[in-house]
């Protein structure tokens, strides 16, 4: 082999490796249903999300948005196909290590805070993957963990409420705590499942802007489930439309980012099928 072609091959291999390393989420031919008798709630032929992308997943209720998030988070196990998250491939039934789970932060619609615990404790406990489980019995965390928690609380502007019980906070503050908890976790992907559904419109912008800001500051891949198309268009770089568990719209494949098909939310209109040869 000539030296030039050898170098060319090497460069190509490096490029391929680099491209693969930069994929945060890769889902191929994945089907999922909750029981063997029930219909599939997720049927995804191909979905790839690059590292650092800000993606909004939109679709009507029951479209499979939350199921998609739970699949990426490793809470549910797919029936067939391949799921590759942050370079790790998961087959059906494979368990996710503590460290892997730590790399994906999840923000919930209902905040999922521990009401009796303080803001600081809730955020600090986002660092559980960093400590020895035996130390957790006595609630021991390192200075580094405490500093990370404090820094995350500061980032969401809740330092003044640090010692307040979580169940005494307002909805917007609770979601800020949830964001801080995820930041303390130092994740590579943040999944936000309808993070503003339980908040009034005045707080919606506030929380979503914060979410986008922190994901940019920390160079984290962000996937958020949203109902509002206008918010998705304003805040995300890419919009994925789900209906009946299938991807029926992907702005990265369409010419017009602002043209989200109405069929996505209208049950009377049959969903558009996207071509299979996309990436």
């Amino acid at each position, binding site marked *: 082999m000539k030296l030039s072609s050898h170098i060319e091959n090497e460069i190509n291999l490096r490029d391929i490796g680099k491209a693969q390393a930069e994929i945060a989420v890769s889902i191929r031919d994945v089907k999922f249903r909750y029981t063997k008798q029930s219909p599939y709630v997720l049927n995804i032929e191909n979905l790839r999300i690059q590292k650092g992308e800000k993606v909004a997943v939109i679709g009507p209720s029951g479209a499979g948005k939350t199921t998609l998030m739970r699949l990426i988070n490793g*809470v549910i196990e797919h029936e067939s196909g391949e799921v590759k998250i942050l370079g790790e491939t998961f087959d059906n039934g494979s368990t996710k290590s503590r460290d892997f789970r730590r790399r994906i932060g999840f923000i919930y619609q209902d905040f*999922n805070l521990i009401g009796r615990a303080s803001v600081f404790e809730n955020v600090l406990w986002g660092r559980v993957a960093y400590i020895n489980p035996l130390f957790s019995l006595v609630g021991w965390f390192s200075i580094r963990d405490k500093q990370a928690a404090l820094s995350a609380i500061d980032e969401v502007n809740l330092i003044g409420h640090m010692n307040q019980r979580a169940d005494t906070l307002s909805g917007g503050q609770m979601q800020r705590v949830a964001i801080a908890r995820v930041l303390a976790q130092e994740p590579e992907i943040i999944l936000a499942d309808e993070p503003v559904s339980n908040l009034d419109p005045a707080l919606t912008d506030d929380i979503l802007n914060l979410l986008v800001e922190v994901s940019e500051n920390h160079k984290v891949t962000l996937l958020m489930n949203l109902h509002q198309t206008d918010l998705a268009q304003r805040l995300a770089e890419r919009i994925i439309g789900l209906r009946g568990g299938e991807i029926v719209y992907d702005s990265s494949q369409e010419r017009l980012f602002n043209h989200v098909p109405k069929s996505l939310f209208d049950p009377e209109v049959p969903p558009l099928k996207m071509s299979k040869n996309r990436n």
Partner: protein
Amino acid sequence: MADFIGRMFPPNTAVAKTVLASTLETLQIAFAGTVISALVSFPLGLLGAENLSPSWVHQPVKWFLSMLRAIPVILLALMFVSTVGLGPFPGVLALAVHSTGMLGKFYAEAFENASSGPLEALESSGANWIQKVRFGVLTQVAPDLARDTLFRFELNLRESLVLGLVGAGGIGFYIQLYIRSFQYDKVATLTIVLLVIVVLVEQLSVAIRKRLR
């Protein structure tokens, strides 16, 4: 009945020293029985909780706890008196075993009532089983556990009086002794002290439980 009550008055205060000593012993029996029971019930509660243990573990644990509850405390006391002898020790054992049946069930139910959302969030952050229990479950249900334990202490205090009747120590032993020897004025002193203690403990328990939330 009137004659019986009439012979109780005036209460004989000469037995005050004995009464106080036996009351203290009764309190000690109830306290020790509750503490031992709480320590044993905690792991059993974790194993018996549907959300923390697989069904092949939590079902047998629940059956075991039901079995413990089904045995009357007096029967347990008689059994322990015949195996370890008279005194407060068999009383403590009887209360501990009987209370475990109830506290284990109460603890398991408290663990099951812990909201699943925060547990999922912890698991998603990388928490293992121990960490989920420590940070997620215990933080949520700590007031319930304390309330259940205090309530059981109140019950144990009352039940420890009965234990004395079968020789398992405490104030009950003196009650039956004085009744059998027709010294009703001394029984009156015991009854008054008993009432005061039970009411005080109950009020204290209510006050503590109110503060827990």
